[in-house]
């Protein structure tokens, strides 16, 4: 059903361009990697059974010890003993500042560096080895470990990855994730929303069509997305969620409840590792870590049992032993589940749907194994949810499919995703003017013109924000920059055009241009809690043994491969062309090809990159002509008669958005269970 008619030369291009790619689900609790084998997405397991490494899931845990970095199952074993130096659930800190964590500080056994307005930093190690480490670096360590197991399985270096992120991740969190990929030495082809990835795996597996809701409750994040599936197109209609709501919160709620009941207080305020206090602080941290771990074990046992025993030995030799029932769990979970319910109702409203119009609800994430969660979802949507694909694995499987698409594979699916939160800029009086609204399909752009408000104003202060509220305080500040050099004039004379562009990763780029003088400023919005390019470059250097040499070799390798790919693609396009190439474009392109060949034989990676860019520039008119022809070819033979219906029959519905009662639900409901 997904067959497309190949353009002339397209199959050769495909073959020449094929990359070795994998999809990675970088989870709060567990990470997985998958790839497509003979058309079937498959999770890659580790090889070492003794280290618990033969499983599909790699615990997203990193231990920073005296002998180096340990990731996964072995790190999990060290977590109770070394709470401060073993980072779990790092995803909750990615792209966040200390201030953002206020509500989640309870029972966190880490030493966090003092707030300096930047991203959260963990302090690990002692003595000379004491150092600060960012969540981006911790994530990179997980990615490196996961990619390493993939390298063995796919038989060679990974050339590209798709990394999944919660749909509700904002710009700062997405950028931090992409940075982590870079830092791990991976080429990030795309950041893919987790529920979208799950829908992809589900839809392809079942050949489903229609409207689906994906309810994804994992360890640290909650997402809900509504998608329409038709003929290989996966269109996200609306998305919502909470990037700090998951199984972890329930674990902490259970632990806090039982500790309070037993009259035990844990004091994690002593954030020092020096002197006499150090021993006490470590003991408190260990207790916090063990309490949360024990709570999680109880929670998971209550999935199959009606009762489970919570045990925790305390410092003074006492122990808490307490039977917990499923009903108690349900009561503790209720406030968290109600938060998911609110997000679900809003997302239905945004998609202009009633729950009854859905063809199915798909469950994703380990937390949806719990009968308490399932019952809640069933009641919320008024139907039994689907959960016949492994909720732990679907996200990685979908990421593998998308990686295959982007790596030049056969699979022909198109994902149309949306931006989860509106983007805007600050106006006079602290009001936020939205340029792009939430649930707009990406990639997209918008621009707006603003005028000066004071006489002789020579700069525009531009403050970029993300969120739904109308005021600056209610939104997340992404970045500030100044457009300078505006010629002095009377108020209202100078005009700045501000343009937002969101790429397919959901990441924003802002440009500002003063229209009279032409002064321009462009920034890739580096969020206040992000890392600068220099910082990443330095971290990369640090991570190589013979830093300079290795990096040189690696860069050269990357640019050469890229040059080969482009040469092959351009050659195939020229050969398959029928009359689109004008003589001068052809001559310029051929010349650029010769030059790039010459450069690729040398060892200057920057020169090679410049050669690639020159070839691109030369062949640009050709590319645009091809794009037009792609559309024309696809549309040939269709007429506009198809569109000749009257709006009167299709009632534009509720308020501003319209609602179409007969949107074609080509019903083919999966044989539901």
């Amino acid at each position, binding site marked *: 059903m997904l067959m497309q008619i190949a353009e002339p030369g397209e199959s050769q291009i495909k073959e020449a*361009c*094929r990359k070795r790619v994998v999809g990675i689900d970088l989870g709060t609790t567990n990470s997985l990697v998958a790839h497509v084998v003979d058309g079937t997405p498959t999770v890659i397991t580790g090889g070492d059974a003794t280290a618990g490494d033969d499983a599909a899931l790699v615990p997203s845990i990193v231990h920073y010890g005296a002998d180096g970095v340990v990731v996964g199952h072995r790190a999990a074993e060290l977590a109770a003993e070394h709470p401060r130096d073993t980072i779990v659930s790092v995803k909750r800190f990615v792209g966040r500042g200390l201030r953002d964590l206020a509500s989640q500080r309870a029972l966190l056994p880490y030493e966090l560096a003092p707030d300096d307005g930047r991203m959260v930093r963990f302090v690990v190690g002692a003595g000379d080895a004491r150092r600060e480490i960012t969540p981006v670096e911790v994530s990179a360590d997980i990615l490196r470990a996961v990619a390493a197991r993939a390298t063995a399985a796919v038989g060679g270096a990974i050339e590209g990855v798709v990394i999944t992120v919660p749909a509700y991740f904002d710009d700062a969190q997405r950028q931090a994730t992409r940075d982590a990929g870079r830092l791990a030495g991976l080429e990030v082809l*795309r950041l893919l929303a987790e529920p979208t990835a799950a829908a992809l795996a589900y839809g392809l597996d079942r050949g489903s069509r229609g409207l689906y809701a994906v309810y994804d409750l994992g360890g640290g994040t909650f997402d809900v997305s509504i998608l329409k599936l*038709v003929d290989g*197109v996966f269109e996200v209609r609306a998305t919502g969620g909470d990037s700090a709501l998951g199984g972890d919160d329930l674990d902490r709620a259970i632990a806090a409840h039982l500790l309070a009941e037993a009259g035990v207080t844990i004091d994690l305020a002593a954030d020092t590792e020096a002197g006499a206090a150090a021993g006490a602080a470590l003991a408190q941290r260990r207790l916090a870590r063990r309490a949360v771990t024990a709570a999680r074990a109880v929670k998971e046992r209550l999935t199959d049992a009606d009762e489970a025993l919570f045990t925790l030995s305390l410092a003074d030799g006492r122990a808490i032993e307490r039977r917990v029932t499923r009903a108690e769990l349900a009561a503790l979970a209720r406030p968290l589940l109600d938060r998911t319910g*609110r997000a679900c*109702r809003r997302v239905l*409203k945004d998609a202009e749907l009633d729950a009854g119009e859905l063809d199915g609800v798909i469950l994703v994430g380990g937390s949806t194994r719990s009968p308490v969660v399932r019952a809640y979802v069933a009641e919320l949507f008024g139907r039994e949810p689907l959960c016949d694909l492994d909720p732990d694995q679907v996200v990685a499987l979908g990421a593998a499919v998308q990686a295959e*698409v*982007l*790596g*030049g594979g056969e699979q022909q699916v*198109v*994902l*149309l995703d949306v931006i989860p939160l509106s983007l805007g800029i600050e106006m006079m009086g602290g009001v936020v003017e939205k340029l792009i609204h939430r649930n*707009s*399909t*990406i*990639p*997209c*752009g918008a621009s707006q013109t603003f005028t000066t408000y004071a006489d002789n104003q020579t700069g525009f202060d531009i403050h970029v924000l993300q969120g739904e509220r109308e005021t600056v305080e209610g939104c997340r500040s992404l970045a500030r920059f100044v457009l300078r050099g505006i010629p002095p004039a009377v108020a209202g004379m100078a005009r700045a055009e501000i343009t937002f*562009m969101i790429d*397919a990763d959901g990441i924003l780029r802002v440009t500002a241009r003063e229209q009279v003088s032409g002064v321009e400023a462009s920034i890739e919005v580096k969020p206040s809690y992000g890392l600068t390019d220099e910082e990443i470059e330095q971290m990369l250097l640090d991570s190589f043994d013979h830093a300079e040499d290795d990096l040189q070799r690696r860069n050269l390798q990357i640019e050469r491969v890229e040059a080969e790919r*482009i040469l092959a*693609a351009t050659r195939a*396009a020229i050969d398959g062309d029928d009359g689109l190439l004008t003589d001068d474009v052809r001559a310029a392109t051929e010349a650029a090809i010769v030059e790039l060949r010459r450069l690729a034989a040398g060892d200057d990676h920057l020169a090679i990159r410049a050669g*690639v860019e020159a070839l*691109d*520039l030369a*062949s*640009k008119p050709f*590319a*645009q002509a*091809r*794009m*037009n022809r*792609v*559309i024309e070819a*696809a*549309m040939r033979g*269709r007429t*506009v008669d*198809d*569109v*000749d*219906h*009257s*709006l*009167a*029959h*299709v009632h*534009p*519905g*509720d*308020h*501003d*958005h*319209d609602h*179409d009662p007969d949107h*074609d639900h080509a019903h083919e409901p999966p044989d539901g269970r």
Partner: protein
Amino acid sequence: MSGSYFELLGLPERFDLARPAIEAAYLDRTREVHPDRFATAAASERVAALQRSMQLNDAYQTLRQPVRRAEYLLNRHGVFIGDNERLDDAAFLMEILELREELAEARVAGKLDEVARLQAEMRRRHRGLLDALIPLFAAVEGDDAAGRADALPRVKRTLIELRYLARYLEECDAALDDEEA
């Protein structure tokens, strides 16, 4: 490529379009030029695909919603509506003001049924105004110059009224969300 949104989607430039037709036109085109299909192509092609996709998305976002489609068409006829343009109609403004007070009272008193009733009523009215746009646009799009000159200001007026109604409906949503929070 700087055609109109209608041209981009291959649709006739008029108000009266069915939602499924707009969707189909968009999906057909976007499927062909989506950047994912050019991921391994040369950068110039990737850029061309990205730009075309963005244009298609912008066009779709605008044309699929009748109110935005109508405003876009109005602009194409050289008529614009300012951000804070007010209606010069005391009776209408008065009525909306009263309805708002009614809503505010119901909200404060926590009478959600009442809020829901007001919302349903306003939705009906909103729908009615959208329907009224169809014959108006037929005149705008017709050959009769006099009819067009007469219809354009009425379209504009209707769209401004719709803004008031939309704002009211947002308040209804907010009131119903209170209970959620």
